[in-house]
Every structure is written in structure tokens, then in C-alpha cells.
């Protein structure tokens, strides 16, 4: 009995399902890329909140004092810390993107290294912002 090519069980490659994402090990470049999106979307959603804080800071001496009380809550501080991370990460990955577009560090190893460096720069700056926010610095 002979089997034709068609009878063989062929391997199937389907789209990645959401539940499989956690089992995929993304390269560093992909991680910074997806975080660039996440941080951008977060800042988009927070835009009215930030404008409200900006408004409070400028209307009058009274609203300036009110801003200080708003900022004294730990939850608001946590949200602002998250937004500080979003801005710093977005800014640093953005600079990396522009450099890549100018064909600087475009080789595989260099690009993988710079994708890690993004965190080495943005995370300590976020930490510094956090220390300042929570009054340690």
C-alpha cells in the first residue's frame, strides 16, 4: 500500500491566539515596540487628566494650592508615576526609532542592544521621577 503526499499529516501554522501570547518569547526589539504602543495609548487616554492638572496649576493661587492637595494622594501619585514611565519610555524608544530610520545601529546585534538600552535609560529616570513624586528626593 502506498501513501500519496496528500495523505500525510501536514503541519499547520495558524495565527497566534491570545492565550498563546504568554508562551511566546519576544525579542527585545518587539517588547520595546509593543510598549511604545502601550505607553502612547496610555498618554492618549490620560490627556484630559493632564490638561486638568495643568489648568489647576495656572488658574489662580487658590487652584495651585488645590493642585497640591490633589497631588498629595497616593493613587494620583501612582497614576502620575505610570505616566512618567509612559512619557520616558515613549521618548527614548522614539529617539531609537529615529536613529534606526537614519540607518544608525540598524544591524541585528546593535538593534537588539539598543532595545535593551531603552529600559536602562528610561527605568532609572522613572525611578528618579518616582522618588521626587513621593518626596524622597
Amino acid at each position, binding site marked *: 500500500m502506498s501513501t500519496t503526499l496528500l495523505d500525510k499529516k501536514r503541519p499547520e501554522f495558524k495565527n497566534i491566539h491570545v492565550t498563546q501570547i504568554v508562551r511566546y518569547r519576544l525579542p527585545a526589539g518587539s517588547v520595546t515596540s509593543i510598549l511604545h*504602543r502601550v505607553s*502612547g*495609548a496610555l*498618554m*492618549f487616554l490620560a*490627556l*484630559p487628566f493632564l*490638561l486638568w492638572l*495643568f*489648568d489647576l*496649576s*495656572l*488658574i489662580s*493661587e487658590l487652584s*495651585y494650592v488645590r493642585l497640591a492637595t490633589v497631588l498629595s494622594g497616593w493613587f494620583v501619585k501612582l497614576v502620575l508615576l505610570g505616566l512618567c514611565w509612559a*512619557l520616558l519610555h515613549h*521618548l527614548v524608544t*522614539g*529617539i531609537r*526609532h*529615529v536613529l534606526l*530610520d537614519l540607518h544608525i545601529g540598524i544591524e541585528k546585534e546593535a538593534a537588539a542592544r539598543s532595545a535593551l538600552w531603552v529600559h536602562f535609560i528610561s527605568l532609572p529616570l522613572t525611578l528618579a521621577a518616582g522618588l521626587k513624586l513621593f518626596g524622597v528626593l
Partner: protein
Amino acid sequence: MAANIGPKRLVVGAHYGLRDWLAQRITAVVMAVYVIAFAAYALFVLPAGYEAWAGLFAPLWIKIATLVVIGVLIYHVWVGMREIFMDYVKPTSVRLFAYVLTVLWLAACAVWSVQILWRV
């Protein structure tokens, strides 16, 4: 391209060109320059307190510069959000609805920032 012509034209597509790609980078550079200069000044030069902070936004040129950067930011956010919707939201009607909400959201933010800046 031929598949997208006439009645098959993708109404939620992106002009299929270089313009937005380039605009995204130019707006990014403008914002980066403003943010870094502003943060450095506010952190290391500006005295604490309401007087100095409100005084910073008093001159007309700084109001205009800030508003221009906000305008540039809004264009940047529009291109970025549209890109996210194009990748993850497939049905045309839902995507168009998301676009409309985004534009209204950003337009409201733009108008509000004029009010904030010109009240000082």
C-alpha cells in the same frame, strides 16, 4: 493597489503614502526638543511657587509655542492611534467609529488647551 480602487477603496485606510510616516517623525522631534528644554528649565532654573510658574506662561510667545507643540502633539497622537486601530480593529464600521471618537476627543483637548493657556 489595484484591489483598492473605486468601490473597493478602503475608507479607513491611511493615504498609502509617505506623508504620515514622515510627519510622525518630524512631530516627534519637535515635541522632544520642547519637552527636554521645558523639563530642564522647570526642574533646574524655575523658582518654586505659583508666581514663577504662572509667570512662565505669561508672555505671548510662550503661549504660542506651547499651543503649536500641543497642535503637533495632537497630530502625532492621531497618526499613532489610527495605526493602533488599523492593526487591531478590523470591521470597517467599528474602526470608523473609533476614528470619530478619537478626533472628537483630541479636538476637545485642543480647544481646552487654548482656554487654559490664554486665561493666564
